[in-house]
């Protein structure tokens, strides 16, 4: 391993480290798990880089390694997310429960980030994955689909439902505060 190879990888890793950290914090239950996940991701990426050289799309490549590691953690713990079948959400309920006028948009916009993160943590795992890729990492639906190994429609659906669910949670949160 030459200094140059290591330095090249390190630059890429540092460039995407915040993305990996944000991803890991949303996908893991504790910050300790998240930090381990970031480290595992970095090590896996480094090994792959040494073997196969620099990837074409480092950002997607890093995100894929991170998500795969996160998923393999459940297998180690012999669990998996409860959402395995596609639930046909009737949006009317969500929408009717939270009519437009009267929602304090400003209150929600002013919510501290940690309050929002707490509500994101209660979303289903698959919705969190999709939202992270689309909103935090800035991938397109097609790119996210490739990272997750699902169809583009599935990504769009999970993201959309996740947004609606999060909005409902935040509205309830601000109403009870």
């Amino acid at each position, binding site marked *: 391993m030459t200094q140059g190879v290591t330095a090249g990888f390190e630059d890429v890793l540092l460039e995407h480290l915040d993305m990996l950290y944000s991803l890991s914090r949303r996908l893991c239950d504790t910050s300790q798990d998240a930090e381990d996940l*970031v480290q595992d991701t970095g090590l896996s990426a480094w090994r792959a880089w040494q073997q196969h050289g620099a990837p074409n799309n480092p950002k997607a490549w890093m995100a894929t390694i991170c998500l795969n590691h996160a998923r393999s953690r459940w297998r180690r713990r012999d669990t998996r997310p409860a*959402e395995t079948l596609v639930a046909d959400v009737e949006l009317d309920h969500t929408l009717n429960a939270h009519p437009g006028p009267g929602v304090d948009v400003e209150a929600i916009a002013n919510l501290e980030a940690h309050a929002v993160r707490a509500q994101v943590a209660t979303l*289903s795992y698959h919705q969190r994955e999709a939202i992270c890729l689309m909103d935090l990492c800035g991938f397109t639906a097609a790119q996210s689909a490739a990272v997750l190994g699902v169809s583009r429609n599935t990504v769009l659906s999970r993201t*959309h439902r996740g947004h609606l669910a999060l909005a*409902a949670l935040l509205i309830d949160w601000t109403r009870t505060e």
Partner: protein
Amino acid sequence: MNQQPWPLAEYLAGELGPEEHAAVDDHLVECDDCWREVQLARLGQSAAARTAQVTPDDVRRRVIHAVRDGNSPPGHHSHLGWTAPSARPHRRVRVLLTAVAAVLAFAVVGFGAGLTTGQHTGRRAEVSRPAASTTSTGVQMGTVAAALSYYRQGMLPGTGIASTPAPDLRTLGLRVTGASNGMLAAQPVTAYVYSDARGTRQIYVFLSVTVFQALTPHGGAPTETRTVQGYTVFAATRHPMLIVGLDHALVTRVGTHLT
């Protein structure tokens, strides 16, 4: 509203072509339902974008050192199973062991605290078991604690496929949205997740292929409903099952329906 559903998800993701996007723009002016849906989704979207975090310095250093220090041998994981030290003493080892000790201490304390406050602890139920005590249907509290832990975290025990079809609860407005075969505190179970029309996870039903361990008819109670840390737990002996959920009335209804 829905003869042909409008592509709102794509619209919000900014992935419609200009003509399609303009068409949805026009539609939103006329359609209250779609307008409301888009406003709500935008709320969630902008909130989600604000959850980005900066990597703490110590985590940054840790990851960089992990990469520099090693030429780590394959299988070098940073979780509890990590067993491969390299030739040079690693600062990471000391940090890791301290972290592991802290996490275990937290898990034992935190799991109990988690049960009280209803917050995530992120640890497997097996990490800390509440002191053994039994309900009148004889179900060990360790089993109940494990069931609640899975319910609260939205996870399923095991990764196996549930080969038996789920009990039909459609008349109660519940649909199956997940199922698995696995273990609940050393008890083999089939777990089913039920959600309501909104898609909100409502209850878990655990069916045992064998009688629940230590399930003895204390005083012969065939069923029992009990509140544990704010959750309702229903247990039955004759057809061994455990039902957990937040909605007391719903859990009771389902329990009655299934026994």
